[in-house]
């Protein structure tokens, strides 16, 4: 079984050298992505496909007027959450912003409950009172689902504070985007997390556009793995389209945190295929750019090609997975349309305990 070369390994090693020279941060060596075994490949394929099909269906329901307000789809970025989830263990927490459906499915939250929340129904995860951007599952350690850009970063840091306070070895996986990375509260959090050696992995999902503003137009330092250097937080750039690279970096990062070394940043270089939200025509980038990412770097297609090349699955087997995933998604959509809206009495519940 040959080791697959990562397309961004050169970028990663370069950035690490700079990081080591620029500050007294003993940055960990960027990990080489390990090949997955058959079981891991099949798992990653199914999980990523579930997110993609779910999001496509959500887009369709939005188009039918069944989902209201804002709806931010995760299509293209699936490898990030699926790879990270493969590095986590029970007790680790996840928190993110408003592009959150993929994170929820990755943590094992039920497609039905997520879709029913999108349609604002009573069996949605928040009883229909939160919607696309505000969903939680205490059981799955998913702490939201936050609509204010960057607000989840101090919150995720607080989850890590609680882990250290209790003396358990759980890690807070705190996701935010390249846009949120310019919010002041992110750096306030970095400072405290490093000062107090909090077990938090900051995942910067760099999908290249903060809504419609390209990274180079909004960020003086576009290498987000360097964003922690002033706080002595090491960072690694990761090919976020390769689920194996994500898992390898995730393994390193959670070990880093669990061994008491404090926070670490992973910049996931990824791409969203759809607009910022459903109402974004995405005219700020060329069709060629999107098409090139889709055809050359698609995270699901990469796994599919490896599964077939290794003869671990043939077309029929992959179709069977696709069918199973479609059934879950179809069932969730059906459920989300037939589940009743919340009872009017719910207007005044859950305000105070």
């Amino acid at each position, binding site marked *: 079984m040959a080791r697959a070369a990562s397309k961004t390994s050169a970028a990663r090693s370069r950035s690490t050298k700079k990081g080591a020279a620029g500050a007294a941060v003993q940055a960990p060596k960027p990990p080489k992505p390990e090949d997955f075994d058959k079981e891991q490949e099949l798992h990653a394929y199914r999980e990523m496909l579930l997110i993609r*099909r779910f999001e*496509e269906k959500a*887009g*369709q329901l*939005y*188009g*039918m*007027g069944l989902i*209201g307000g804002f709806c931010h789809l995760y*299509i293209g970025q699936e490898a990030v959450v699926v790879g990270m989830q493969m590095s986590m263990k029970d007790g680790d927490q996840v*928190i993110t912003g408003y592009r959150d459906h993929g994170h929820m499915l990755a943590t094992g939250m039920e497609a039905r409950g997520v879709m029913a929340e999108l349609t604002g129904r009573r069996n949605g*995860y*928040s009883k*229909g*009172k*939160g919607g696309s951007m*505000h*969903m*939680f*599952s*205490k059981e799955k350690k998913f*702490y*939201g689902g*936050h609509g*204010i850009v960057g*607000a989840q*970063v*101090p*919150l995720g*840091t*607080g*989850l*890590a*504070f*609680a882990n250290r*306070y209790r003396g358990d070895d759980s890690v807070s996986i705190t996701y935010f985007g390249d846009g949120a990375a310019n919010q*002041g*509260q992110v750096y*306030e*959090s970095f*400072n*405290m997390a490093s*000062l107090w050696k909090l077990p938090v992995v900051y995942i910067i999902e760099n999908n290249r556009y903060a809504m419609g503003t390209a990274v180079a137009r909004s960020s003086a330092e576009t290498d987000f793995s360097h964003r922690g250097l002033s706080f002595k937080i090491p960072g690694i750039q990761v090919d976020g389209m390769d689920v194996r690279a994500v898992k390898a970096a995730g393994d390193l990062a959670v070990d880093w945190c669990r061994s008491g070394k404090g926070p670490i940043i992973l910049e996931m270089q990824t791409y969203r295929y759809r607009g910022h939200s*459903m*109402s974004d*025509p995405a*005219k700020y980038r060329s069709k060629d750019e999107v098409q090139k990412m*889709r055809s050359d770097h698609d995270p699901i297609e990469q796994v599919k090609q490896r599964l077939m090349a290794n003869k671990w699955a043939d077309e029929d087997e992959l179709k069977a997975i696709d069918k199973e995933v479609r059934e879950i998604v179809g069932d969730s959509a059906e459920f989300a*349309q037939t589940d009743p*809206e919340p*009872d*009017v*009495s719910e*207007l*005044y*519940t*859950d*305000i*105070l*305990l």
Partner: protein
Amino acid sequence: MPTEILMPALSPTMEEGNLSKWIKKEGDAVAPGDVIAEIETDKATMEVEAVDEGTLGKILISEGTEGVKVNTPIAVLLADGESEADLDKAASKQAAEETKVADDSATKAEPEEKSGGSVPAAPEVKIAADPDIPEGTEMVSTTVREALRDAMAEEMRRDGDVFVMGEEVAEYQGAYKVTQGLLQEFGDKRVVDTPITEHGFAGVGVGAAFAGLKPIVEFMTFNFAMQAIDQIVNSAAKTLYMAGGQMGAPIVFRGPNGAAARVAAQHSQCYAAWYGHIPGLKVVMPYTAADAKGLLKAAIRDPNPVIFLENEILYGQSFDVPKMDDFVLPIGKARIHKEGRDATIVSFGIGMTYAVKAAEELAGEGIDVEVIDLRTIRPMDLDTVIASVKKTNRLVTVEEGFPQSSVGAHIASQVMQRAFDYLDAPVITVAGKDVPMPYAANLEKLALPNVAEVVEAVKAVSYRS
């Protein structure tokens, strides 16, 4: 069965659009994610992607059609193994879908009609009375500062999940010495000095509370909490609701609020009305040391986010505090500070200092004033206020905050709605002046309410001026 492709809504407000272009033609194979058409909305031209795999069997709406309503079938997609002969099956499905949509809207509309489209009544908040203080209980003269410290220390002894964080709370012993001695007793794990980073540490506190800890976040003053107000309002106050009751933030935000002395505009503002505006928060603003202690203990035990507004000038004032093992007061209950029958003054926090002195002066002039200390701004004990107004028929509110949308303005509006017939005079709301706090000593004095204003207001509502 063939699948219909419907005219999509592509923004929260779109009802119709123009089908400007078909990218795929009849007979073309499509896969999920393929762009099949372009649609023009009022804001932009958007691409429509296929969700299902299949062959574009028939185009129902030709390109160039304008004003196509959302959810109109625009094409039919044939699945693997289906042919043109199957196209009509989609039509019957369409009819079924339409019925379903119609049914759906009927069920949606029904509950509204049943209740006449009206909003259900807000639930009544039932709050227990203050605990009895057993006869013979020793009363200890205590400063507000010590009472607050004692409350925190007792709760920290009682519950290992309670900790204090904030600027200068540990080694410096508190910027205003409220946390004096806590570091020595509880150590630096539970008494945490933070960097000067209000937005950040407020969020860290809320995150720790999400995880089940019970943080006490001290702001050096609430003026600085404006930097953190997003985390307080959007993260702490709203999460329980947004999570459908699954999780919330058991957290206390406390610190001095309002004007101190000669610290001018940016350091002299009362936030009672600001936080009192927000559902999902409890807001406490005590006056006496006993209330400060009993209510802070309650706030720390409360599973909800509590804003605890203290006052720098009151920190050094002494009051009797009952010497009891566990003196906890109910949040949301006003206290009748002094009974009276001629007029009611409602105040809270440092506003009480004006109210109490005014009542003493007025007693000398034969006006017997009832003074109510609200203690809690949210949930507000309007029942106690209204019961008093029904007795005295006259009401004056006193606070240091700005006059517009003030706590007094809210009380006046509620009393007007619930006890209009009992009022013998319009309610007067005494508040700080509608100006940023000036620095100059004489101007500062003018900007704050004073005893004479309160006396005058009570006389005015009593037609005695």
